[in-house]
């Protein structure tokens, strides 16, 4: 038993509740948010170091033994993602202090934000399929609140779509869990893995696996279920878009990674082969979307989709190297998507428009913003020495080793097009004649660049310091290929 494992969920939850009480004192809310995001980050980093040294922490809630009660499993994979989540929370909190209007702050933005972090951390940590559904609901509830906050016309239109699609996939999720329970009689992931292994994933189990995949693919925005994402994610203010883009789809990807590396791994030639095709289409269609628009925020939002495709490719190839690539890319993408949303949000705030054709020459008065964007663009496209390169390199290396040349080609072409789509922002937004004199600008970049700098430091560290991070990530991938490690940690007999 270890209560440490629950802390990443409990701390933001308690903070969120506390912020509801003191909602009227605006300064106090900000001070507490500012302190608590750092406390959370410190606590989860500490738990992470414990997990990496001593192996997974398992909490059996209410002292009910593992297959029967609810378990919280803090293994290495979960902790890496929880730490990244909290890093993004720090950056988002400080970006929100600078950029959010008073009305949104008054309507519980910071409380919802903390609850979102609690939900996302919970989804990463839970060891129980039904509770994965519960934590999905927790984070979705918070996200419903966040997406509609402010109530502009566009937000209301997009939130309706967002809520309907998520409601539908949640219904499908809980139905599928019920199917699975009726077949194997458990929802504990470790025991599920054992029982599915016993019958070698026959007949109906593969059908259930595909249904689960559809649920997670909707949440994670895979081809052809991504249609709802770009516009919904670009409707709310930048900081909320950044939170959604960095965290929510990644929970979907994580769920696929967990379920299809632990439980449903006996019909690889069918399920995982299918993933590779999905991944290819996701990369291509996502990047075509990104090329099709001149709205800077929409370009970044579309770029979420090919990134999900890359991660799926790694899961589809399903070798230790490719999975390491997926995890590396997952961490990289969470950080870089948040940074990019902050950057285009700042650009738009300065020029007063999201339309790329109406921007220009921003680098003249904002050199720091410009070069930060350049670094972020290169990292997104996967150029060395940034973190995207290491992730993509591992992914493609894994794919070549397993003779999946098709996805390698699609991946490389996709990367090139991603670079094209994002460098378009740099060329049109930063170069050329300055459209606005400093006094005409709608907002200043003061304080907005600090969160971006924090995130970019980690991007560079993940790239240049790959020697340091890679062994840990490879260790996680090795343990994913061998599910018995997870099963033994949860069910000790």
């Amino acid at each position: 038993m270890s209560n440490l494992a629950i802390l990443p969920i409990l701390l933001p939850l308690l903070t969120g509740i506390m912020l509801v009480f003191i909602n009227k004192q605006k300064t106090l809310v900000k001070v507490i948010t500012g302190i608590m995001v750092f406390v959370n980050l410190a606590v989860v980093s500490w738990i992470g170091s414990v997990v990496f040294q001593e192996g997974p922490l398992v909490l059996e809630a209410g002292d009910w033994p593992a297959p029967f009660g609810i378990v919280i499993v803090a293994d290495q994979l979960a902790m890496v993602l929880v730490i990244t989540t909290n890093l993004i929370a720090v950056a988002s909190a400080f970006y929100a202090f600078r950029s959010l209007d008073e009305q949104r702050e008054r309507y519980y933005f910071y409380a919802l934000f903390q609850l979102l972090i609690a939900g996302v951390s919970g989804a990463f940590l839970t060891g129980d399929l039904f509770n994965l559904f519960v934590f999905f609901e927790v984070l979705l509830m918070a996200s419903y609140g966040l997406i509609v906050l402010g109530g502009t016309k566009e937000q209301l239109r997009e939130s309706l779509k967002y809520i309907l699609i998520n409601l539908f996939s949640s219904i499908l999720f809980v139905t599928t869990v019920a199917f699975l329970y009726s077949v194997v009689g458990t929802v504990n992931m470790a025991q599920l893995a054992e029982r599915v292994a016993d019958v070698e994933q026959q007949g109906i189990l593969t059908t259930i696996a595909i249904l689960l995949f559809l649920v997670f693919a909707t949440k994670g925005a895979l081809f052809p279920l991504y249609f709802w994402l770009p516009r919904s994610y670009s409707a709310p203010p930048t900081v909320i878009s950044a939170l959604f883009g960095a965290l929510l789809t990644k929970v979907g990807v994580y769920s696929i990674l967990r379920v299809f590396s632990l439980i449903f791994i006996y019909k690889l030639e069918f399920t995982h082969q299918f993933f590779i095709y999905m991944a290819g289409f996701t990369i291509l269609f996502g990047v075509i979307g990104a090329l099709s628009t001149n709205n800077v925020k929409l370009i970044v939002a579309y770029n979420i989709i090919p990134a999900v495709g890359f991660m799926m490719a790694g899961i589809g190839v399903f070798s230790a190297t490719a999975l390491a690539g997926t995890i590396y890319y997952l961490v990289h993408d969470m950080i870089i998507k948040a940074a990019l949303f902050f950057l285009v949000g700042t650009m738009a705030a300065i020029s007063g428009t999201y339309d790329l054709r109406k921007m220009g020459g921003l680098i003249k008065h904002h050199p720091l913003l410009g070069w930060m964007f350049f670094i972020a663009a290169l990292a997104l496209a996967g150029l060395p020495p940034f973190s995207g390169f290491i992730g993509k390199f591992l992914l493609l290396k894994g794919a070549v080793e397993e003779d999946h040349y098709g996805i390698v080609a699609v991946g490389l072409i996709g990367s090139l097009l991603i670079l094209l789509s994002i460098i378009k922002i740099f060329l049109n937004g930063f170069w050329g004649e300055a459209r606005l004199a400093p006094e005409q600008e709608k907002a200043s970049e003061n304080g907005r660049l600090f969160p971006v700098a924090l995130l970019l430091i980690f991007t560079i560290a993940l790239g240049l310091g790959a020697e340091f991070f890679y062994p840990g990530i490879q260790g996680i991938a090795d343990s994913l290929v061998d599910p018995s490690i997870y099963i033994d940690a949860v069910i000790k007999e």
Partner: protein
Amino acid sequence: MKNVTNDLILKTATTIIVFLILGFSVYLFFAGHNAPGGGFIGGLMTSGAFVLLYIAYGFQTMNRVVKIDFKTFIPIGLTIAVLSGVGSFLYGQPFLSHTDGYFHLPIIGKAHLATAMIFDLGVYFTVIGVTMTIILSIAKDEGEQVENAE
């Protein structure tokens, strides 16, 4: 007001029925844990009683009498529920561990008390807060529209 409805029967009946519902909701709340009932259903029943009062006496009258902001029930309930789970930390037990026992109380006599009841109390408050906030917000919307129309 143009149309004054004659709702004497509703009002008179409500004053009695509300106490029956409230009493039953408390019974349901304590019946939980071992029998059908508990914080959720008790909370719904209590909000039912409040809603009936609002229907019978109208929004403005009730707002004059009941000066409670139901929104504050939500964080209070959540705090109680979460802290009842955290309480187990003090005894070195896993999160959400609960215990129970038999006690002799004055008047009632031998009673079965469980710490799960504290969690249920949190649920009870949260449910009242959420239900009343939703219903009253919808009711308020309509009221504003009527005012605008006139």
